């Protein structure tokens, strides 16, 4: 296999992963919930991807998958595009300068990113619209459990991207 073909196949693989999971996230197929806590599967995928990619590639991946999410998510205009772009850049920059690229680092970063995503979502869309009591219920019963559940999905994607990294020409 030539170097350029291998490179093309890897790019196609990454596009497929993001595209397929962006679509599945908003279908009944991926309605995975435990006691009301859901998952935003694209966060661990983006974290795992950004560990081994440049800030600009991570920003692009985050922004494009965020736009696909925004086209289905209720009440968001560019929220997912903005927050996933920031997460992509944050993970890419910190993994190159502050963290080692290993599983414990990936878990910590995934947890931080998930918590930030759900806290921002809660702060922007739920704090003012639902009153104090309900917004607190939303935070404790939905947002924080969802953040923890989402962070756990880093395991398969960390190993997937670690394997893909080895295939790079």
């Amino acid at each position: 296999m030539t170097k350029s073909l291998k490179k093309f196949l890897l790019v196609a693989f990454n596009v497929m992963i993001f595209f397929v999971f962006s679509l599945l996230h908003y279908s009944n197929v991926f309605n995975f919930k435990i006691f009301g806590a859901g998952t935003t599967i694209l966060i661990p995928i983006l974290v795992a991807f950004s560990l081994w990619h440049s800030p600009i590639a991570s920003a692009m991946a985050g922004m494009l998958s965020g736009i696909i999410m925004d086209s289905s998510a209720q009440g968001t205009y560019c929220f997912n595009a903005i927050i996933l772009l920031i997460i992509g850049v944050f993970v890419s920059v910190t993994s190159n300068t502050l963290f080692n690229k290993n599983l414990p680092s990936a878990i910590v970063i995934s947890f931080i990113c998930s918590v930030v995503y759900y806290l921002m979502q809660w702060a922007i869309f739920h704090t003012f619209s639902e009153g104090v009591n309900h917004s607190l219920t939303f935070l404790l019963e939905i947002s924080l459990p969802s953040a923890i559940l989402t962070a756990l999905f880093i395991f398969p994607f960390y190993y997937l991207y670690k394997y893909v990294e080895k295939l790079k020409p």
Partner: protein
Amino acid sequence: MRFFFRSRQFKVILSVLIALIAVSVIFSLIGSQISPQANIVGMLTAPFRSAVNGIYNGIEDFISAYKDGNKLMLENAELESEVNDLREQLADYQEIQAENEFYKKYLKIAENHPDFKFTAATLISRDNDDPYQSFVINKGSLNGVSAYDPVITDAGLVGFISQVGLTTAKVTTVLSPELSIGALDSRTNDSGVVSGDLEIAKNGKTKFYNLARSCSVAIGDYVATSGEGIFPKGLLIGKIETIGTDKYNTSIYATVTPFANIEELRQVMVITEFDGQGSVLGKVGG
């Protein structure tokens, strides 16, 4: 890290980020319109989303058809192949019959409300992060759908169009607190407001509140729209399940189970025109 902040890469990313924030602010001020980039992507991905949902529904139908037919297959092992052929034919027939039933039921609504104009739409994606079960349909402004159009099934009211794109639209359901509907108890004519509540939305219920203490609503009564606001009069919303008093003991509320099974929805109708539409636009709900 500081080298990154001085790099050209960072400047490009920052410019894109500022552009996204600007678009976000502008469109949140305009309201009820899907942002342009999400609109384009939504248009391009709509066929894929329809396909994903179609495959999922197909698998679900196949599994339930298989479960239903399993007993018969055991009893008639020698006729297995014949049964399979017949089942396939039956599945096709049931699909056509269900489709006919779907349109027949709407025909009844259309006969009762000659001023209504409908557009049939299929659900193409669900916002699984939204506890109020909002979803996206495959019809948009190109099909005559506009913001605040009511969305119904043959069973009753589902919600309204909260954001509209060219070929897709987002639907906010009756379970959401974003929606306030002027409503009546159809037996006693007691009036109140139907709006969602996080606690009961988890169980697929909504709230009928602001009812006078002297009202005579009862469990089992039907609740319908009163015609004030963005919804036409007489659309069934749901059935009263429980009745209680608010925490200040000043008014009565009831929990209502919507007639439309929002969790299982596949097809809906958008009422694109009705008498009196547009008279109260500018505010959400009624």
